[in-house]
């Protein structure tokens, strides 16, 4: 008998912060570069060198915590995590053990169908990154079988945010949606590039399963080596399936660390250390405690940007945009900001999003100029939305106008006035164009009357052309039909 299983997933993310300099020294914090050119006595762990924390990194972590509604404890400190590894210069990592910068908080995320969910955070803390090892002599750059390793300490000491979730995610898709939301939020806060491919976002997943409806957690495995959102989803799904298979066949899940094998689509147990981890955490005597000032916290809280989830809820709820349209805007923060300003003026989110995501985005792509930097100001776009909404111009004219505004700027109202582009909704004026067109296309009229009703579109098009696009298309359609059937 197969029971119903519920997967339980917690995610630990390491995120490199986007500061100008490293966490504890003034070396440049920058991806890549010639090996060992961004190093100094401090980040090389030279004898006698001392760490001094980067105020900006602390601010970034606290702001991140605030964005997720975390508590900012009055007191925090740095601890040393002691273990030997060649790419860790001091052979201890400065981290935070029992007094992280932020505690708790909630990450809201949405699924493709627009469902909002949430996952609580345990904590966010600050630590320093290690250098990079390149394993050589094995042919494939892997550690297994390598005969020596090369070390580059450019990354050593880069500020790293560790963000730990509660085990509250219940599917591989939820886990990825959680990560997407985390990534979007960090981008909105401008605290990280969050690029998995450059390693500025790295994550591990703790996966277990339990009998559905029970509350006790099952034995977990920790999954590592996932280097894209897609591999996170595949790895978790594969691990859930593996654990269920083990349990269904009467076995037991072993607590262990498993590595994701992208090529074969499975997780493998990773070799465990001979001795248990004994990190000997203790307060770093080179650093003094942190007491984050309450007025700084208030100031940072007030200046938080609009967060992706707030936008998502507003766009899909109040504005009635599709999940897809909402996500497109949210994933282009300057565009979303532009859109918000247009909506604030036009009060027509649907039409505004049509322009912003349609014609304007197309022009932006074509010209390489961001919408927000273009000649089309938010005021002018709001005017254009109003012109369409009041039917003073039709959509074809609107598109032409937008192209002209992109080119040379200017108020659409003024252009419409100056060039008489306003839509003609006066039946007698439109009727004149209809008569002209029918007279000039006697053969087509004959076809129509012979039953080829599909020529109607052609005739209406000719009327629009004769009116230089200004005729109200609905009216033109109606009048052509009326005349043909009379």
């Amino acid at each position, binding site marked *: 008998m197969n029971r119903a299983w519920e997967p339980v997933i917690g995610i630990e993310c390491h995120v490199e912060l986007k*500061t*100008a*300099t490293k966490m504890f*020294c*003034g*070396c*440049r914090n920058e991806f890549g570069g*010639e*090996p*060992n*050119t*961004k*190093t*100094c*006595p401090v980040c*090389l762990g030279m004898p006698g060198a001392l760490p*001094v*924390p*980067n*105020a*900006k*990194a*602390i601010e970034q972590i606290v702001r991140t915590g605030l964005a997720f509604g975390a508590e900012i404890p009055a007191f925090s*400190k740095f601890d040393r995590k*002691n273990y*030997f590894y*060649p790419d860790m210069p001091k052979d201890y990592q400065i981290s935070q053990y029992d007094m992280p910068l932020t505690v708790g908080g909630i990450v809201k995320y949405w699924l493709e169908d627009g469902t909002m969910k949430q996952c609580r955070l345990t904590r966010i803390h600050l630590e320093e990154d290690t250098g990079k*090892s*390149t*394993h050589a*002599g094995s042919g494939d750059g892997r*550690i*297994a079988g*390598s*005969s*020596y*390793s*090369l*070390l*580059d*300490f450019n990354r050593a000491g880069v500020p790293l945010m560790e963000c730990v979730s509660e085990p509250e995610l219940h599917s591989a898709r939820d886990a990825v949606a959680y990560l997407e939301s985390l990534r979007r939020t960090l981008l909105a806060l401008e605290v990280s590039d969050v690029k998995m491919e450059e390693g500025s976002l790295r994550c591990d997943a703790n996966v277990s399963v339990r009998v559905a409806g029970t509350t006790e957690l099952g034995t977990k495995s920790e999954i590592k080596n996932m280097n894209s959102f897609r591999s996170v989803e595949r790895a978790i799904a594969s691990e859930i399936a593996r654990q269920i298979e083990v349990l269904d066949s009467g076995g037991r899940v072993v607590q262990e660390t498993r590595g994701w094998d992208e090529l074969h689509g499975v997780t493998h147990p*990773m*070799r*465990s*250390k001979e*001795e248990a981890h*004994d990190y*000997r955490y203790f*307060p770093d*005597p080179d*650093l*003094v*405690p*942190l*007491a984050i*000032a309450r007025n700084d916290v208030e100031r940072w809280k007030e200046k938080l940007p609009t967060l992706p989830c707030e936008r998502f809820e507003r766009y899909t709820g109040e504005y009635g945009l599709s999940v897809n349209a909402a996500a497109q805007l949210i994933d282009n923060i300057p565009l979303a900001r532009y859109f918000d300003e247009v909506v604030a003026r036009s009060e027509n989110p649907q039409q505004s999003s049509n322009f912003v995501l349609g014609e304007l985005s197309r022009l932006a792509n074509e010209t390489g100029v961001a919408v927000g930097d273009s000649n089309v100001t938010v005021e002018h776009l709001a005017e254009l939305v109003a012109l369409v909404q009041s039917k003073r111009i039709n959509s074809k004219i609107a598109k032409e106008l937008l192209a002209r505004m992109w080119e040379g700027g200017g108020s659409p109202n003024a252009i419409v006035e100056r060039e008489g582009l306003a839509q003609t909704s006066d039946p007698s004026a439109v009727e004149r164009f209809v008569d002209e067109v029918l007279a000039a296309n006697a053969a087509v009229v004959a076809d129509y009357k012979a039953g080829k009703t599909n020529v109607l579109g052609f005739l209406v098009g000719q009327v629009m052309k004769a009116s230089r696009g200004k005729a109200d298309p609905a009216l033109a359609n109606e009048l052509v039909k009326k005349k043909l059937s009379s």
Partner: protein
Amino acid sequence: MTPDTIDIRYVATLARIALSDDEIERFSKELGELLGHVRALQELDTASVPATAQVVESRNVLREDVERPCLDREVVLDGAPQRQGGFFRVPRIIAE
């Protein structure tokens, strides 16, 4: 294990120091004795006493996020036991 004993082999493994049999014997004895002296601390009533990590109270000593000059790579690598090009080189790392 009583508080006064020390598992020298385990501790030496954590500290990454290879010890000879003589050293193991000698350090076990000496450090066991030292732990005996240290046991005197158990006499103190520290139930309501806060731990002191830093004796002079100080908070929030930070630096601005401003770049400073790095070391010249040649100077850095000249002091290395083994280098290869612009890298430090180490013997193979057994995955842990």
